[in-house]
């Protein structure tokens, strides 16, 4: 945690330092810098190519997309035909809603139960505390994928197969997040709470009105991390849901690939539509998301 926090404020000064050194050397930019810049441009472009190529294909007609030889830009001009087709005939909007709903619920429940547990483990001294912490830490080793078989059996027993709750509930257990929150709460000075306790505030009130507002950055980071994970989760929703109306975007898309076969432009239009929500969110919250991923990524271990 401590190692990660200074990074948050860093990009500003680092970028400005780069700018001033550029300005100072305006007369003579060192060749190594030019080479580095060219390499970066080439790599960044290469990284964007698959996305650009899919987008270009999605804007062609089916005939054009399957035409030989391959043309980069469509000769007969761009068309939104595939998008219209997909949005009117397919279930993409429905799956997008399912993804949004289940991911938001997973994030909400995870953050609530993890903060409660993290607060207790950080601030209260009680019998079994150490046991809980070591159990949480040890459980991080368990690969979620090997649990699909017994989890599916459990869902059958609980009658949760083909339900939203079946998708949501198994995803709310995020042991690393409890640990991250606990570590963060540990850093908040006790004096703040002492004063509130003196005034007769309850533990729960202190958590709500003192601890959580002070923890906004880490709560944001955890939420982003959990949300992206839930939004993109494939295996579990794929296993627990068979009803096409309950599928999330990643699982729904998978069933369509086999159904549509060789409709390249429509396949790409679906994929681009499925990618779009998170890309838009990323463009708006780039800084927070990058911070969130690097803090939880580092602290998560």
């Amino acid at each position, binding site marked *: 945690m401590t*190692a990660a926090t*200074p*990074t948050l404020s860093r990009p500003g000064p*680092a*970028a400005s330092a780069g*700018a001033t*050194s550029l300005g100072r050397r305006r007369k003579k930019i060192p060749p190594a810098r030019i080479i*580095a810049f060219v390499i*970066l441009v080439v*790599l960044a*472009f290469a*990284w*964007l190519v*698959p*996305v650009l190529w899919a987008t270009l294909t999605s804007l062609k007609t089916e005939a054009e*997309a399957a035409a030989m*030889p391959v043309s980069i830009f469509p000769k007969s001009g761009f068309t939104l035909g595939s998008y219209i087709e997909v949005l009117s005939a397919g279930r993409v909007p429905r799956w997008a809603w399912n993804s949004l709903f289940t991911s938001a619920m997973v994030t909400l429940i995870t953050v*609530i*139960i993890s903060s*409660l*547990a993290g*607060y*207790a483990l950080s601030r*209260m*001294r*009680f019998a*079994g505390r150490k046991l*809980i912490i070591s159990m949480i830490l040890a459980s991080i*080793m368990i*690969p979620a*994928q*090997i*649990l*699909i*078989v*017994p989890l599916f*059996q*459990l869902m059958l027993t609980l009658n949760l197969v083909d339900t939203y709750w079946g998708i949501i509930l198994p995803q*709310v*257990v995020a*042991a690393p997040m409890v640990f991250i929150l606990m570590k963060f709460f540990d850093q908040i000075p*006790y004096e703040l709470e002492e004063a509130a*306790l003196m005034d007769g505030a309850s533990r729960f009130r202190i958590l709500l009105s003192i601890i959580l507002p002070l923890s906004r950055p880490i709560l944001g980071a955890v939420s982003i991390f959990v949300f992206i994970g839930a939004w*993109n989760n494939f*295996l579990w929703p794929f296993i627990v849901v068979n009803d096409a109306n309950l599928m999330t975007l*990643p699982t729904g*898309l998978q069933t369509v*690939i086999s159904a549509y076969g060789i409709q390249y432009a429509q*396949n*790409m239009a679906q*994929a681009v539509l*499925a990618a779009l929500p998170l*890309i838009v969110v*990323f463009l708006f919250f*780039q800084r927070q998301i*990058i911070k969130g*991923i*690097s803090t939880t990524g*580092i602290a998560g*271990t």
Partner: protein
Amino acid sequence: MTTADGLAAPSGARTGSVPAGDTSHLTEGRRARRRTDTLRGWLYCAPFLIAFGLFLIWPTIYGFWMSFTGTSLAGTNTQFVGLDNWVEALGDANVWTSLGNTVWFTVLSTVPLVVVALVLAVLVNTGLPGQWLWRLSFFLPFLLASTVVSQFWVWMYNPQLGLVNTFLGWFGITGPTWLQDPSTAMVAVVITTVWWTVGFNFLLYLAALQNIPESLYEAASLDGAGAWRKFRSITLPQLAPTTVLVLVLQILASLKVFDQIFQMTGGGPGGSTRPVLLYIYEVGFTGYRLGYASAISYIFFFLIIIISIVYMVIASRRSVKA
């Protein structure tokens, strides 16, 4: 400990029953407080612990039990079969080839995912203009769902219509059929994986690079060190803990490969890309043999545990040295 006791003290004092200076009452109050804290502590942990127990611990135990039974997806046959599943799994050639594929994928993907991430982070960290664009380009694919990534790349690798072979064609090279060819399918999947997930390691390295104190470089400059020398003597050693972290996270993540292989090749051609998790899925959900699938799951789990323990030993030795 002391702060925690001090913290809760006022609530005891507020009852007004403890006269100041009476220590015997104080210890009694403290004991009572601890009892209420135990209750409260468990109460606050309860929602998490219930989910934790139900959806993580129980399936872990139940799965282990299932590996000793003949359970099928229909759920009727739950008879105890002892070590039959385990013996069968250890003699099943598909288990070994799929485990081999998993390890092979891990080896092939981990090296570029660490090296490329480091190179990208070092290049971006030089402060070249366009920071926003670099981060966007390299990190964006990480935000895509596996299905989207697989769709994009199946289209890229299309032997006749894909961009990869079109590009090779410009140089007069006839590209392979990629995903349909056993000798190139795994490499193709690895390239896709590097493209998809390198952004995460890139961000971890970038954060670590920004934490290296500027003063180290300044001191080295005064000593007349060149750029390469600074990279070797300052940057790399300073990044060592991050590299260990990235390496371990990457190995563990690569061992769990499933999504993109399932979606891009279905494990083919001829099982040449099938990872062990895909074999478990096939045995359990296509072959309906849940008990047998559990046994294979646990063989895989033990592999993960061994690797985690090796990491912990290395990490603890490192911290002892430091």
